[in-house]
């Protein structure tokens, strides 16, 4: 099955909303560090959960380029396509 960026973005948002500290009004364009107040360790730990959910590994160097939830979703979709 191939997920779209929208599917993955929705999955990430759902996962984030399970954390009561995350603002309720997040969207795909929310910035992970600024809007969610995640520090570097929290980002890496959260991405690990998403990786397991979607059976994909996001290398840390790719993570450095990611700012929004949609960026993360796009990165995961491209990794799953093998690029």
């Amino acid at each position, binding site marked *: 099955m191939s997920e779209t960026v929208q599917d993955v973005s929705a999955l990430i948002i759902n996962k984030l909303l399970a954390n009561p500290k995350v603002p309720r009004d997040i969207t795909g364009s929310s910035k992970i560090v600024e809007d969610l107040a995640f520090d570097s360790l929290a980002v890496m730990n959260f991405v690990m959960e998403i990786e397991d959910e979607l059976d994909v590994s996001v290398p840390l*160097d790719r993570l450095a380029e990611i700012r929004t939830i949609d960026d993360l979703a796009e990165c995961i979709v491209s990794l799953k396509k093998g690029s």
Partner: protein
Amino acid sequence: MSIFDKFRGVERRLAELQAAGGRNPFAVVIERPLSSTVGIIEGRETLLFGTNNYLGLSQSPRAVEAAIEAVRARGVGTTGSRIANGTQSLHEQLEQHIASFFHQKHCMVFSTGYQANLGMISTLAGKGDYLLLDADSHASIYDASRLGHAQVIRFRHNDPDDLQKRLNRIKDEPGAKLVVVEGIYSMTGNVVPMAEMAAVKRETGATLLVDEAHSFGVLGPNGRGVAEAAGVESDVDFVVGTFSKSLGTVGGYCVSNHPELELVRLHCRPYMFTASLPPEVIAATMAALDDMQAQPQLRSQLMDNAARFHAGLNGLGLTTGQTVSPVVGVVLETIPEAIMLWNTLLSLGLYVNLSLPPATPDHHPLLRCSVMATHTSEQIDRAVEIFREALSRLPAAA
């Protein structure tokens, strides 16, 4: 916009820390060590339970004499890097000494343990390769991952199944895979499940590097670390470690049976472009290694002391790491509680390390303690008693 704007957040947090406890926990000065276990801090005799000096060898008379002799004979520095003018016969002797201790053919000595990890990992895992790191890795390992050009993948802390899963995801990718684990994790004292990690290495064909910084001289029948303790030394491709803990000096090393380690010397920037260890440090390190080998009872004393301290803290209802090791991380719930407790401990004459998130796993603050072979039972009991006293002084809401 100032170039210093990026530091304002830390400036604010430091001010809050000092306001909450009265001290800057990152600027504690040990005015003078009286022995390996007691130092003068703020003019008071203070029990040292946070110095990583596991065998007490920073005060080894044999190492002191060797350093003095080396300084008199050779001067105080080399003024050069290993590949330029900074290699003396002592460097080669030390490398032979360390290689022989580990029963390995090759050794590279670095100027610090940090540089050993930084250099080895960033050089071995190159462009197109994969570097697999434990999530709770030391900063030197994370920094190595940024200096090098490999794709970096984290696996869950001390979880060989998770490592295997992540290696399986990239099994068809062409690059080499370097797995890095630590013998004892420096914040929590957790010991790596080494036999299981070695099994994953065998099954997947990955290259395995073990950082024995906190386990060298501590674990294994001969002090060679966690790989010796688990009986899997032949599965480990590279052992990295430091002289600044069990041997009480400074410097780092990597040992291996791979002859290519000699080629790493010519690719490894943190080795090539820094001054080499000075003669007195090398002489003291070799003497401390002799001391360590001549006194295997130091290791059993250390583990007995670790068990006593661990049990004492658990007896007070404090949460510590999963395994008994000389690193005892007391896990606390809130940062204000950790700050108050740390300050009270120091005022009562006990020095431990305050570790705050995000430098700690799971967002919990830690009071990181390290036990020594040279602590007496009375000193350990006294340290536990100081913890009891400090806990009783915490306000209920902290």
